[in-house]
């Protein structure tokens, strides 16, 4: 999904660069109170972690392999805006040092993977978590929504990517959309499983590290049950 240079026309990449710059500027402003010198090492190492985790490929079918996006994971763990900024850093380094995604397409790639596949999916996740939370426990509703919206995030990102390519006249929409969405519907299942398992394990051992979780720590509950 990392679009290289030359695949988008100037009006598409120009617009999306502007949109992504706006989001990034707002993110720096919104997360300003949180971005002290204590969290910068944490964000840097999380960025390195997402980078490394993207190297654990899982094969899908017929030779294509998917690596995961990590946007939902970053946001559930760090919160929306710090997670967004980590994704921007990852995409920036991938672009400058791995030529993975182009320079003029950087704005478009941030838009696809960090705005559509990230922020939008994350806020939908938090909305439905709130709705589910009325009948289910916080842990169950968070994990259910993480599973569903990690899948949705990958599929939405692939739809956005297809539209960007089609609007630029690089590929016809009618053929690229089903192909991209089909492949990413499968990749999304892997993304959903990995993200959910990671959040479940982190909830078990360090619930304080999950930003989207506000409930009582599991261990605390167990102790409380045993004391009672």
């Amino acid at each position: 999904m990392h679009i290289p240079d030359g695949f988008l026309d100037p009006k598409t990449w120009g617009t999306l660069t502007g949109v992504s710059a706006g989001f990034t500027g707002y993110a720096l402003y919104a997360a300003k109170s949180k971005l002290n010198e204590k969290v910068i090492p944490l964000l840097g190492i999380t960025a390195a972690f997402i980078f490394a985790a993207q190297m654990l490929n899982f094969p899908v079918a017929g030779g294509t392999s998917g690596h995961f996006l990590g946007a939902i994971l970053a946001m559930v763990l760090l919160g929306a805006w710090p997670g967004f900024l980590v994704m921007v850093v990852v995409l920036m380094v991938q672009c400058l040092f791995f030529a993975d995604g182009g320079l003029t397409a950087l704005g478009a790639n941030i838009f696809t993977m960090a705005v559509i596949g990230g922020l939008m999916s994350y806020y939908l996740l938090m909305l439905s978590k709130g709705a589910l939370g009325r009948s289910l426990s916080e842990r169950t509703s968070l994990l259910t929504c993480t599973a569903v919206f990690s899948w949705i995030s990958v599929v939405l990102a692939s739809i956005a990517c297809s539209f960007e390519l089609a609007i630029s006249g690089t590929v016809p929409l009618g053929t690229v959309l089903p192909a991209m969405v089909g492949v990413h519907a499968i990749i999304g299942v892997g993304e959903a499983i990995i993200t959910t398992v990671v959040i479940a394990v982190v909830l078990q051992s360090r619930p304080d590290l999950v930003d989207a979780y506000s409930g009582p720590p599991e261990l605390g509950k167990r102790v409380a049950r045993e004391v009672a």
Partner: protein
Amino acid sequence: MKHDYIDRYSKLESPVHSLDPRAKAIALFALIVICVTTPPRAWWAFCVYAGVVLIIAAASRVPVSYLLSRVLVVLPFILMVAVFIPFMHKGGTSYDLGPFAVSSEGLLVLWNVAIKSTISVSCLILLSSTTPFPDLMHGLERLHVPSFFTTVAAFMYRYIFVIVDEAQRMKRACESRNFRGRWIWQARTVGYMVASLFLRSHDRAERVYQAMCARGFDGTFPLQRESSMRAADYVFMSVVVLIVLTGRLAVLWK
């Protein structure tokens, strides 16, 4: 993994390596933007761009085989577009290729993405293999990229190979127990690996932060040597931009 995994060959000595990161970044970014906005039928302009890239590559003394292997990352994308070409019937002459009819319009699209992405990727690879990561980040910072990004990226650079090593150790441990990660339902196990990778990375981040505080960290990285733009840097920058712009504008006049 070697610690220079990200910016291999960036510590060689050559005329290109000794240029200021800002001069290289501005010149190559300008080349990319100009190249991407060139109409596909401007054949001569692309020859000029490719010529500039080849001259810089030759002057940089980075092994050709390494550059070629890195440029290959765009190949899957070009192939993807090539697959869709037969479905494009926007008009123009078409050529019969067995079961498919390929329109000249479609071929033009393929040429357009192939040449532009190859030239742009070569520029980015040349930049990262002739400039050490910390120097480039510092250069970007002085070009007014917010220091938040450059500082976070600096940490990322410092720890990426440590964490990738950790990931590879875990992968090796899995493989030695006959786990190959072949099917999608095995993504669960990958999930456990990623989770413990995160917890270990987080512990490491906390230890690193405490160690850095003990050594007087205040949120910024002091630089050992301050680079400044010299005459050679201005010359390089303006020569590259001028040649490329001439190539681009020559097309307009024709």
